[in-house]
């Protein structure tokens, strides 16, 4: 399972990096992505300890809505839907995997 995890993280990091070269995210969009990631996931992993899976799904849905709002506000005229979405999901995957396996969370 561990090699699979490492391979998936490497693929996700590549997606994040390639996203910068394929759709060149503007400052507003990327700042909103970073800040909402910090706020949502620190809240989810702090307060959703009892129902971890439900909390992660709720956090992911909330993040998805935020990403779509930010995309339509700042990016829809400049880039297609798929690269921003793939980069966003890869970022969330790396964060959730890191936090889900951190010693504080165990």
């Amino acid at each position, binding site marked *: 399972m561990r090699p699979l995890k490492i391979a998936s993280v490497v693929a996700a990091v590549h997606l994040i990096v390639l996203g910068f070269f394929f759709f060149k995210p503007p400052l507003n969009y990327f700042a909103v992505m*970073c800040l909402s990631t910090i706020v949502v996931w620190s809240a989810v992993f702090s307060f959703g300890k009892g129902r971890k899976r439900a909390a992660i799904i709720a956090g992911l849905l909330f993040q998805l809505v935020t990403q779509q709002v930010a995309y339509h506000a700042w990016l829809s005229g400049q880039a297609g839907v798929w690269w921003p979405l793939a980069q966003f999901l890869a970022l969330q995957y790396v964060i959730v995997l890191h936090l889900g396996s951190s010693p504080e969370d165990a």
Partner: protein
Amino acid sequence: MSGKLQASRNERDVNCFSKATPLLHTMNSKMALYILTHGVGLIAFALLTHRVTPGIAWVTLITGLAGGGLCALWGVLGLLGHRRRIGALLTLIPVCLVLITQAVSAWMVRSTGKSESLLLPTLITLMLVASVGMLMYVLHGNRPPEFYLPGTARREGSLSRGKDSHSDAGRHQSK
């Protein structure tokens, strides 16, 4: 004779600009100086986080030292004439990624009450904000409009811009 000379000069300029499409990806001295300053600042902040919470923020320390050191290196190389932005971009993207995970962890620990101090999460968040700002500046700063066009259109745009600017220059010279 002079018309022939002018035509050959124009052709040479066009060829020069078609080869010079990578100019879209270069930085100037001001940007190199900002990257150098950011690198030094990142190192300073990493040392500060390690000083305020010794033995805890190891990942932040390593990220700050390695990322800051590399940024400083790209800045110095930029000032010395190596004008490609790709190195700085490929340093700043992982730095931002690691700092996001560290910021989430730090705020999480703070909100669960395991730590009362606001200093560590605030410092990491400041490092993140500075790195995101620098990443966006390196990605978008001083780009010509052709940079935002898709591949072929970008090359054509760069070529026509080169033609225009050089024919303008020729006009000014003839005046």
